[in-house]
C-alpha cells in the first residue's frame, strides 16, 4: 500500500463496499473479483444490472466480470502503467479532467502533465496491445462519469512495478475528481480476511499500530512508556528480505504464526533452503503445514471459530469475531500462546480476555481511538478512522482533505516487468486464485466438499498456444522457469490470452511458486507474482 500512502497519505480502500452501488462507472483492474472477492462482485454485478452502471474491465484474462462489462481492455501482463497513462493523456487532450478538483485538492499536476504527452494512443497500444479505439472510449466513459470508482487487487500490486501501478491509479482518480464522494474512490481489495488488520496492527517492519513510524522518536517514546520497554529504532526486514537474510546466515531463528510461506512465497526452492539454514524455527499453526514440517517446535493454535477478538475487513471495518467452540486437545488461541511465551521469556502480558487488548490498541492508535471492544461487540462493525468514542466511524475517506493534506500526483513512467519472455522462456506465467480455494489451501483443501468440486487445478493455456505446442486437453507437461520446473496438467481455454499461462497457487501438487520471480517492488516489497517467463516442455 506504499503507493496510496505516497499519493494520499494513507493506504486503504477509500470508500465502502455498499458504496459501489452508487457508481456510474466501475473500473476493475487486476482483480478477478468474482473468484477472489465474491460478495463484492455481487455488488458490481448488481450496479451494472439494476442501476445501469458501466463496467470497464482491464485484465489480460477473460475473467467472469468480462461478461458484464461494457468495455474490456485486454492488456499484455505487466503493462498497466502504459494503459493508464494512455487513458490520462486522452483525458487531458480532450479537456475532460476535473480542473476544479485538481486546483483545490491536489499538487504535482505539472510533473504528471510533463510526461503524459508521449503516451499517445499509438504508443499505449504498441506497449499494451489494447486497441487505440478502446483506450479512447474507456477514457471518455471514465472521465465523463459523474461518479467513477476504481477497484483493484493483487493483479496490480504483485508486480515489480506494483507501487507504480497504484500511483497511476491514484493519478487517474484525482485527475477526474473521483475521490471523497459516494460511488467513487480508489479501492484496493485485500486478499486475506485480516490483511488490513495485520497491517493496521503494525505487523510490519517499519510501522507500529495505525502506521505510526517506528523511526519517529515520539512514537517510540509513547510505546516504550505503555509497554515498559526499549524499542529498536532501525527498520526491520520484510518477509522476502527475511528469507534472503536467512540464506546469508544473518537471520538465525524465526517465529512463524499462521503463515505458510512454503506455498505462498515466490521461488519456494529458495525458501526451503532458507528454512533449512535456520538454527531454530518455531511454527504456530492449526495444521502441520508444508512450512511446519521444517520446524524445531510446533505450537498448536486455534481457528477463527475458537477465539474471541476482531478482524478488520478490506473496507476498514473492525468487526467482532466470536468464539464458538474450544480448540481441540491442548491447542490454544494464538493470543494466549503469545502471552505464555512472553511470560516464559520474562515479560508480563497479563491479559485475561482479548477485549483488554482491543482497548489497549485503541489507547495507542488514533485511527482506532474510538474502537473499544464493547462498542465493536454491540455494533455491526466500525470503520476506521474512528478517533473517539462519539465518532461514528468513516465510510468515505478524504471527503474534505487527504491524509497528507493535498493529494499528490506522481509522474510514473512505464517500465517493463523484470522478466520478459525470451527465446529460451517464450511464455508469460501469471498466478492467481480460484473461487473454491483459498490461499495455500490449508483450510479449503481440508473442507472436503470444496476440494471435491475444485481438486488440484490444471494450468490454463490458450487454444493457439496449445495448438502450437501440440498439447491436448488434460495432457501433462513440464513448466520451466529460470528458477525451477514443475509438472502440470493442461486445461485449454480462451480465458488466458495467447502467450500467457495461468496457474493457481493453492496446490502443493502444482507449486506455482517454484517458478515465480522473487524480484521485488522496490517500495512495497511485493514480489512479481503476476509475470514471469516460462517455457513448456513436453513429457
Amino acid at each position, binding site marked *: 500500500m506504499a503507493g496510496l500512502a505516497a499519493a494520499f497519505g494513507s493506504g486503504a480502500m477509500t470508500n*465502502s463496499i455498499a458504496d459501489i452501488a452508487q457508481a456510474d462507472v466501475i473500473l476493475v483492474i487486476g482483480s478477478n473479483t468474482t473468484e*477472489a472477492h*465474491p*460478495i463484492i462482485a*455481487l455488488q458490481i454485478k448488481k450496479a451494472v*444490472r439494476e442501476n445501469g452502471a458501466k463496467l470497464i474491465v482491464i485484465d489480460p484474462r477473460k475473467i467472469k466480470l468480462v461478461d458484464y462489462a461494457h468495455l474490456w481492455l485486454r492488456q499484455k501482463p505487466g503493462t498497466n502503467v502504459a494503459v493508464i497513462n494512455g487513458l490520462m493523456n486522452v483525458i487531458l487532450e480532450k479537456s475532460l479532467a476535473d480542473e476544479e478538483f485538481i486546483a483545490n485538492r491536489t499538487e504535482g499536476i505539472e510533473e504528471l502533465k510533463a510526461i503524459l504527452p508521449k503516451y499517445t494512443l499509438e504508443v499505449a497500444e504498441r506497449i499494451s496491445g489494447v486497441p487505440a479505439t478502446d483506450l479512447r472510449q474507456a477514457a471518455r466513459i471514465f472521465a465523463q462519469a459523474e461518479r467513477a470508482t476504481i477497484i483493484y487487487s493483487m493483479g496490480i500490486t504483485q508486480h515489480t512495478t506494483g507501487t507504480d501501478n497504484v500511483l497511476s491509479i491514484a493519478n487517474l482518480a484525482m485527475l477526474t475528481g473521483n475521490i471523497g464522494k459516494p460511488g467513487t474512490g480508489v479501492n484496493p481489495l485485500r486478499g*486475506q480476511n*485480516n*490483511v488490513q*488488520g*495485520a*497491517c493496521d496492527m*503494525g*505487523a*510490519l*517492519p517499519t510501522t*507500529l499500530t495505525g502506521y505510526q513510524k517506528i523511526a519517529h522518536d515520539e512514537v517510540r517514546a509513547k510505546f516504550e512508556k505503555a*509497554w515498559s520497554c526499549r524499542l*529498536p529504532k532501525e*527498520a526491520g526486514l*520484510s518477509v522476502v528480505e527475511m528469507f534472503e537474510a536467512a540464506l546469508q546466515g544473518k*537471520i538465525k*531463528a524465526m*517465529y*512463524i*504464526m*499462521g*503463515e505458510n510461506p512454503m506455498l*505462498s*512465497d515466490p521461488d519456494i526452492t529458495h525458501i526451503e533452503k532458507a528454512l533449512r539454514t535456520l538454527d531454530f524455527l*518455531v511454527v504456530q499453526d492449526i495444521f*502441520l503445514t508444508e512450512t511446519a514440517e521444517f520446524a524445531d*517446535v*510446533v505450537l*498448536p493454535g486455534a481457528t*477463527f*471459530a*475458537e477465539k*474471541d*477478538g476482531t*478482524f478488520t*475487513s478490506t473496507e476498514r*471495518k*473492525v468487526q467482532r469475531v*466470536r*468464539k464458538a467452540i474450544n480448540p*481441540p486437545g*491442548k*491447542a490454544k488461541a494464538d493470543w494466549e500462546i503469545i502471552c505464555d511465551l*512472553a511470560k*516464559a521469556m520474562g*515479560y508480563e*502480558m497479563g491479559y485475561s480476555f482479548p477485549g483488554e*487488548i482491543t482497548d*489497549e*490498541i485503541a489507547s495507542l492508535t488514533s485511527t482506532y481511538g474510538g474502537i473499544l471492544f464493547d462498542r465493536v461487540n454491540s455494533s455491526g462493525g466500525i470503520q476506521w478512522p474512528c478517533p473517539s468514542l462519539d465518532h461514528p466511524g468513516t465510510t468515505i475517506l478524504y471527503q474534505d482533505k487527504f491524509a497528507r493534506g493535498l493529494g499528490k500526483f506522481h509522474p510514473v513512467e512505464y517500465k517493463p516487468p523484470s522478466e520478459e519472455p525470451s527465446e529460451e522462456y517464450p511464455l508469460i506465467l501469471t498466478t492467481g486464485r480460484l473461487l473454491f480455494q483459498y490461499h495455500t489451501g490449508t483450510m*479449503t483443501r481440508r473442507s472436503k*466438499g470444496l476440494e471435491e*468440486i475444485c481438486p488440484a487445478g490444471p494450468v490454463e493455456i490458450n487454444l493457439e498456444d496449445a495448438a502450437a505446442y501440440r498439447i491436448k486437453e488434460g495432457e501433462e507437461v513440464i513448466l520451466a522457469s529460470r528458477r525451477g520446473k514443475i509438472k502440470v496438467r493442461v486445461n485449454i481455454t480462451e480465458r488466458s490470452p495467447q502467450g500467457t499461462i495461468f496457474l493457481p497457487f493453492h496446490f502443493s501438487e502444482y507449486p506455482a511458486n517454484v517458478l515465480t520471480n522473487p524480484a521485488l517492488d522496490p517500495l512495497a516489497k511485493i514480489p512479481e*507474482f503476476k509475470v514471469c517467463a516460462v517455457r513448456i516442455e513436453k513429457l
Partner: protein
Amino acid sequence: MAQVIVTINGRRIKTEIGKTILEVAKENGIYIPTLCYEPRLKPYGACRVCLVEVEGAKGLLPACATEVTDGMEIATDTVTLYEIRRTIVELLLSDHPPNCLVCESAGSCELQDLAYRLGIEEVRFKGEQYEYKVEDFNPLIERDHSKCILCGRCVRICEEVQGIKVYDFINRGFETVVTTPFDRSLTETECEFCGQCVSTCPTGALIDRQRKFKGRIWETAKVRSICPYCGCGCQIIIHVKNGEVIGISADVECGVNEGNLCAKGRFGYNFINHQDRLKTPLIRKDGRFIEASWEEALKVVTTNLSKIKTKYGADSIAGLSSAKCTNEENYLFQKFMRAVIETNNVDHCARL
C-alpha cells in the same frame, strides 16, 4: 420521504411512501404469512399466502407487492383470509412428502411453520404424491424436488443476486418442476456453489449436504462471527453442536453480505473439526516430531531464542505474523517481537 398514515387491523400507523404493506406490517409487529417473499429479492406475489384485504380495492392484494398509500385501510387477519391461506397451504401439503420427521429443514421450514400457525391438523385434499428424483452427485447441495413448493425463490436468487441462471421452471401444471437445464448435476452447470439458493429455500428441497444428519436446528448453538476467508468481511452465523461446527449461515439483516455468502464462506467449514488438526505441541528430536507438553515446548523455544539473541543479537531473529489471525493477536505478535525479542523484524505474508 413523504409520510403517510395507514390503518392495519384498526391500528393507525405512520409510515413512509414507497414501503410495501408487508414491510410496514413487519416493522409494526403485525404478522402476515409469506412463502415466496424474500427480502433479498424483488416482490413476486405468486404464492398468495400474503393476500390482505384493502378497503375499496378490487379483490385481495398481495402484501409483499403492494405499496402503501395515504389513508389505506388494511385487514390482515379476517376469516376470509384465514380460509384462503389454509386452502393454499393444504394444497401444498397435499402432495408434499410426509417425512418431516427426518427432514433436514424441520424447525426451519417455512411451510411447516405456516401449517402449524394455521393449525392444519388434517389435510382435506388427497393429492397425488409427487415422485421426482434428482440425482445430483455434487458434494455440497442436495436437491429434492418432491419437497419443492415452486415458490421460485431459488430461481430468482440465482438470477437476481448471483447473476446466473442455473434453475428454471420446466413443464406445466402438476408436472411443473424447478431444475437445471436437462436436469443436469449442478457441477455441470454454471453453478458457483454460493448456496444462496439453499439459504432461501423455504422447505427441505435444497439443503447443505455436508450438514445432513449432523444435528437439528434447535439443538445447535448459533454464534455470530466473521468469515475467515477473504477480505470482504462477511458476517456469518456458526452453527455448533457438541463442540463441532456443523454449518454456516448468514443473517439477511446484517453485514455487507446481507445474508449472502460464497462457496468458501458457506461450505468451507470442515477444516475446523478436521482430524489432522494439531492438538498438542511438537518438538523435533532426532529428525522426528515428538508430542510435548506446553511447558516443555515453551522451554525449548525460550532457551533457543534467548541463546540466539545473546550470541547473534536481537536482529538475528525474525517473526511472521498472520493475516488470518485477529487484530489482537497481530498486535501482540508485533509487541512480542519488538518489546520482548527487541527487533523490528516482523512482517506478515499479506504483501503476497
